[in-house]
């Protein structure tokens, strides 16, 4: 089963929930945790594990072969992303802007722009007993997060069997990277705060999940602050609230040090138990 942990806005506690839920579950069973927030991967700051494997990740981009080029200009004309431009008698390629559509390469009449692999980031595979942690990190300057997110999921599919529970820490927002990170999930947990900001961003996240036709539930973080707007909204819309993680200065302090919280704050463990119980009923209900 694949569980994606997402949120409309950043800073609501996605990473906190992902790492604590994964570490707690991994006390009893094999778990794969993957940080798919490849632009700002932070889960690794909370995980102590040894490196099993590390690999460079590539995307395909065109490379200019000067001796084959007739400077006809078709390549720059067909590139919708300004990733290929002609400068006098020179063709320049900007790999960070390239979406890898192959149009310039395949429409070049003299094969002067073959596609070659170009590094866009790193994938790390770490292990601590039953917990496997996969982190991908996009190089600074790269703009395309989606291909790296896809390749990370492919890596997991190749290296782990389907019966192992997978937890995806997704990027924030509602744009393409989030869609890529959640579209294969069997269930999505939306993390929010019980505040007007939290509610506003939750509504957008809910719309996105409905558009993707994904089953989802809500975890309220910092329960006790703000107001009851989020809970009332969930009740109105029949959205299951899986857990309410209390607002506690101690949690913020532990988080700031890069520490796990579930063993230090008993209420957190109780709330994680509720989430786990819910996930078990899903599994029995036939979601695979």
């Amino acid at each position, binding site marked *: 089963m694949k569980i994606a942990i997402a949120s409309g806005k950043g800073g609501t506690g996605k990473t906190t929930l992902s790492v604590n839920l994964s570490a707690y579950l991994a006390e009893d069973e094999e778990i794969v945790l993957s940080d798919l927030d490849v632009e700002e991967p932070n889960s690794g700051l909370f995980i102590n594990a040894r490196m099993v494997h590390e690999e460079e990740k590539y995307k395909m981009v065109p490379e200019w072969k000067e001796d084959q080029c007739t400077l006809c200009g078709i390549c720059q004309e067909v590139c919708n*992303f*300004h*990733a290929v*431009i*002609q*400068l*006098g008698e*020179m063709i*320049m390629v*900007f790999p*960070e*802007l390239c979406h890898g559509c192959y149009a310039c390469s395949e429409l070049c009449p003299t094969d002067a722009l073959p596609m070659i692999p170009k590094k866009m980031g790193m994938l790390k595979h770490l292990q601590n007993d039953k917990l496997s942690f996969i982190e991908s990190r996009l190089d600074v*300057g790269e*703009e395309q997060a989606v291909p790296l997110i896809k390749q990370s999921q492919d890596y997991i599919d190749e290296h782990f069997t389907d019966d192992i529970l997978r937890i995806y820490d997704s990027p924030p927002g509602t744009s393409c990277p989030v869609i890529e990170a959640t579209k294969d999930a069997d269930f999505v947990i939306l993390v929010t705060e019980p505040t007007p900001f939290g509610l506003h961003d939750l509504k957008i996240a809910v719309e996105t999940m409905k558009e993707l036709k994904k089953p989802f539930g809500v975890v309220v973080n910092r329960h006790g602050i703000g107001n009851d707007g989020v809970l009332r909204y969930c009740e109105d819309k029949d959205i299951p609230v899986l857990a309410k993680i209390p607002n506690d200065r101690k949690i913020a302090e532990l988080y700031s040090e890069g520490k796990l919280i579930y063993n230090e704050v008993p209420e957190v463990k109780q709330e994680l138990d509720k989430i786990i119980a819910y996930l078990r009923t899903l599994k029995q209900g036939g979601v695979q």
Partner: protein
Amino acid sequence: MKIAFTTKGTEWDSMMDPRFGRTEFFLIYDEENDELKPHDNRSSSNDAHGAGPKTAQVLFGLDPKVLITGNGPGGNAASVLKKARIDIYVGAGDMTVKEAWEAYKEGKLKKF
């Protein structure tokens, strides 16, 4: 020698545009015949991504030796300008074109 300015208008008294990729205009000053020519770059606002290198390509076509601007171009545009051998001077974002030109002549602008 031709000198390019990123600007919001087409006169010596116009304000500089501190941006490069999405600058509204270029003003090209030709020292030899004391001529000031505008180039409208407002169509760059149609580009979702890659406005920088596209604008750098346009500037290459205008053939200046020096660019005077505000914050300086981003990485991709900077590499095009380097290939095009255009020298870049920055820090003129809050000035009028005339003030920027004088600051440049007096050596007060920083080379990018």
